[in-house]
């Protein structure tokens, strides 16, 4: 399947002028780590350098679209955005069929300290949920966290920091511990992030990939539910569509 690897190199060349320049200067170094045969390398080298720049505005368009989803993070590290297409995160995302939004979040977070990492994690989680398509139904007899929800663990104080940055202020420091939050991205509405009680977070995390009702009930009891209360908790989560799955309600 080296034709796919070759085409992904083409994509990288169309977005990263530094890679195009490196290809012209030192092809072996520029293409190191990519499984291409000699003929494929020769085709790339023979391509006129200007052919990689026929749409010079394309990288800016893609970057602007990504930046629009990370306003708070970029308020902290605006200098990171212009270097995205030269980053290993971008190149890996293309070459390994990954996600540009996830790669952008990693790129922003990798060199900015704990405040940047925390905010990038939250905005990255929203971006990820926006990209989740229709999930297949849970397996029979199982309940699963709804696809518009995600439980994310971030540094304590990250939610307040995000709110401050969104309000245009600098925000405070974040604590050494972490806390769970619930990311909610409805299909036709605005994304929200809310604090989550640890016991509820444990239940929802357990249901992320699908789990039986009995297992959920056992976890609820382990988290402190009174006898008989676990069913009420699970029913409530099914009723508000936090959990999905056929046969979710007891009755």
């Amino acid at each position, binding site marked *: *399947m*080296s*034709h*796919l690897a*070759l*085409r*992904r190199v*083409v*994509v990288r060349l*169309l977005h990263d002028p530094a890679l195009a320049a490196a290809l012209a200067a030192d092809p072996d170094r520029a293409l190191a780590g990519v499984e291409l045969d000699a*003929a*494929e390398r020769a*085709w*790339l080298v023979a*391509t*006129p*350098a*200007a*052919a*990689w*720049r*026929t749409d*010079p505005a*394309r990288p800016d368009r*893609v970057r602007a*679209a*990504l930046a629009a989803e990370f306003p708070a993070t970029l308020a902290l590290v605006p200098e990171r955005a212009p270097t995205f297409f030269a980053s290993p995160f971008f190149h890996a*995302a*293309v070459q390994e*069929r*990954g*996600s*540009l*939004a996830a790669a952008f979040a990693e790129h922003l977070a990798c060199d900015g300290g704990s405040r940047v990492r925390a905010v990038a994690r939250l905005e990255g989680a929203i971006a990820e949920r*926006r*990209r989740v*398509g*229709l*999930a*297949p139904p849970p397996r029979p007899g199982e309940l699963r966290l709804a696809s518009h929800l995600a439980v994310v663990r971030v540094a304590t104080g990250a939610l307040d920091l995000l709110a401050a940055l969104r309000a245009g202020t600098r925000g405070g420091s974040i604590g050494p511990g972490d806390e769970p939050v619930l990311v909610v991205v409805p299909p036709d509405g605005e994304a929200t992030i809310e604090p989550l009680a640890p016991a509820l977070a444990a239940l929802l995390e357990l249901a992320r990939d699908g789990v039986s009702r009995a297992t959920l009930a056992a976890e609820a009891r382990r988290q402190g539910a009174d006898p008989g209360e676990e069913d009420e908790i699970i029913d409530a989560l099914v009723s508000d569509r936090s959990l999905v799955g056929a046969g979710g309600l007891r009755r």
Partner: protein
Amino acid sequence: MRFADRVARLPRLGLGVSTEYGAGDAAGALDVLALRDAHPEYARFLEVGIETVKGLDRHARAWVERGLPTTYHYLDVNLDEPEDFDDAWLDEVRALAAIIRPAWLCGDAGMWHLGRRERGHMLLLPPILTRDAADAMADGIVRLREATGFEVLPENPPGQVYLGDLHLLDFFARVVERADTGMLLDCAHLAIYQRLRGHAPLAGLDGFPPERIVEMHVAGGSERRHDGFAWVEDDHSPAVLADTWTIVESVVPRAPELRAVVYECERNPLPACRDGFARLHALLASAAPALAPDARS
């Protein structure tokens, strides 16, 4: 059943127009239903460009609600990447096809998205022109045909960079032979390729099986130059290049199974497109009369 037999069941759609989500709302865009009412001979069917995540816009829905013929042009599948055929996407394709009831599926057989199918990943690049890539493409076509029950016609995509050791027409000859399917020959895209490679407009056509051509696209393009590199931008303007007309007028009389021709001018007003429609209609009337029946019929 082999393609040679299956193709006999495909309708002869004639001359049609194309759209994609939102195209009809652009300033000065072609109003496909108004065109249908004023010049039914120019808009006998609508080719609907579809990303499943977007679905159908109001123009496509209005066309479908009138029971008019369509084809389904996918904009979101890399046919040569097995990972692209996930169940959720196939379910959405089947659901949309059930709504528009297309004569067949078709679309550029290239790279529609970098990375996984995801928001912000869209682009369009041609395939790598090698035997391995052709075989992978053919496997994807068969898979999509079997999953949907519709014929799947690959289209040669546009590009500014074509890599590989095969001529584009030899590549697609191998694809359609291995997938045992028909071809959507985009004459504007072929002209772009021929010029980039320094070939004459008709180079390589003698080696392509004309009986595989089921649909053709015709569109305008704009000549560009950047740092000494010259290429043609596939901008679907009404100005069809002379090279493209040369290809169209050579192929139409030689394609016995031709069922449909699309003049891709969806973002332009009718007065700017009228000459192109008229020229194509006249060509079909003389060289493929089954595709251009009298307007009263």
